[in-house]
């Protein structure tokens, strides 16, 4: 195995009683790659992601994220990853700045780092004017991009995005993917789940999940040739 593989998974399985949500999946993700998990609702995408982020314990199988074991070293993994869930993950009653400050705070950033990060995010997203406004008052597209920026406040190696563009119009989705590309260019690995076919095309490689199993895994172009 090469050093540049930031995620290595082998036979990862999750059972809830008799139900097998994730069935012996294996794959690797390269550093800087945009890796997509495509599948219908209930195919096991979220459960797989939850195991990689340490939210859920695998029933069997092995997995390494950022060089650490998902079973034994989930605490170390947590320091190195960012996460954005399907649900909008900022506090609506806090202002833009307060949200950045809070998430910076829980990742142990110093006051100075938080200040630098805040102005950087506000500038990049052109949100300087609304920095003191509650997040509630922002349009959905802005919120989404802010949530993405906040999930990377601690400069993680890998960012996990769980259906980040659910319920957003195509225009906003395009904007959001631009932000993903920017992050990827900085050398960050992006692990994203989606059930939109067109979004899968934006990824470097995608794996298609059907009822807990990976049915196909390749670059979008190769997959198109295959099917």
């Amino acid at each position, binding site marked *: 195995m090469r050093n540049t593989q930031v995620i290595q998974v082998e036979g990862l399985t999750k059972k809830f009683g008799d139900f097998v949500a994730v069935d012996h999946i294996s794959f690797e993700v390269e550093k800087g790659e945009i890796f997509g998990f495509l599948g219908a609702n209930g195919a096991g995408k979220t459960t797989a992601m939850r195991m990689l982020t340490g939210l*859920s*314990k695998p029933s069997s199988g092995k997995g390494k994220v950022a060089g650490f074991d998902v079973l034994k070293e989930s*605490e170390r993994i947590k320091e190195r990853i960012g*996460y954005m*869930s399907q649900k909008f993950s900022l506090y609506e*009653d*806090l202002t833009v700045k307060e949200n950045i400050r809070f998430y910076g705070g*829980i990742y*142990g950033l110093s006051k100075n780092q938080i200040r630098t990060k805040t102005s950087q995010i506000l500038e990049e997203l052109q949100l300087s004017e609304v920095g003191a406004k509650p997040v509630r008052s922002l349009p959905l597209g802005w919120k989404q991009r802010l949530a993405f920026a906040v999930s990377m406040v601690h400069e993680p190696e890998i960012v996990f995005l769980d259906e980040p563009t659910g319920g957003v119009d195509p225009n906003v989705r395009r904007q959001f993917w631009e932000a993903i590309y920017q992050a990827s260019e900085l050398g960050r690995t992006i692990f994203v789940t989606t059930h939109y076919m067109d979004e899968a095309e934006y990824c470097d490689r995608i794996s298609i999940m059907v009822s807990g199993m990976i049915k196909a895994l390749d670059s979008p172009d190769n997959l198109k040739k295959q099917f």
Partner: protein
Amino acid sequence: MFKVFMAFVRKEFYHILRDKRTLLILFGMPLAQVLIFGYAVTNEFKDARIDVLDYAKDETSEQYINHLQSSGNFIVRKVLASQKDMEAGMKSGKTKLVVSIPENFSEDFYSGSPTQIQVITDGSDPNNANTLVQYLTEMTRSFQRTKRNESPNPYSIHVASRMLYNPQLASAYNFVPGTIALILLIICAMLTSLTIAKEKEIGTMEILLVSPLSPLLIILGKVAPYALLSFGNAVIVILIGFFVFDVPVLGSTVLLLGMCFLYVFTALSLGIFISTTVKTQQEAMMKSLMGLMMPSMLLSGFIFPLASMPTVLEYIGKLIPATYFIRILKGVMLRGVGLNFILFEVGVLLMMTLGFLLLSWRNFKIRLE
């Protein structure tokens, strides 16, 4: 670690200060409760209107009627002419009690033969009726005493009763401890379960769990502000009780505050436990209102005495933390006892706290598995 904790606490304070509902529960509820219980729900009364049916119509009966009014508790609304008029005042609700004085009142009274005065009350309001009869009986006794002292009759037994620890039978002595127990429970348990349920509902809980923060720190950071605020609330209620309603704190203040702190801890662990069993704020609200507030109010001995309840309810009452805390408060505040008198209650609260925390921990583990 401490810095991370403070970041959490600051965020939580923003939530509290920006949410009108939370603010209302935090600061409106204690005030409203104390004032409602203090002024409206009271067993004491003044100027109760009574009717008199005076068959005797002599000097003694007149003295007796005057004596009844002298305390300020009773005002004679009407002197009735016959028994037929009795019900009219009662039905209209204008009078709560009728005193009927027999024809040979004076004669019997001075000759030492048994004298009977009939008292008729409005039983549709039994609590009130009972209190009125008690007051009237007391007034009648004192009338007898003053008269007997004037006459040379040596045979009279006089029962002097004294209510220890609450000589005036002030209802504040009961409602201040009860209110503290209720308020702490509501604020700690309900708001804690609500705030944790809210994080789950809006999806931020997942983000927090993916962060390097330990679950313990997340929970501590969330509940610490509520612990602080409800502890402050307890102090405010004690102060209002002391200055406005003259409820004393006879025992050690340090012990009292320590006990409040213990109870805050119990209520918090209960709130955390509730939050591990719910997914939405609404569920948390229902569970804490129905499961905590109602039983704590009705079965803790706050409003109705536990001892007079059916056995089943009595046992349910014994499962409620407020029951023990009210006992502790009454002991420390009113009877001035030390820790050694309330060891059992303290032990029960400690056990309950430990139990709730263990249950929460188990639920939490299951969720992660």
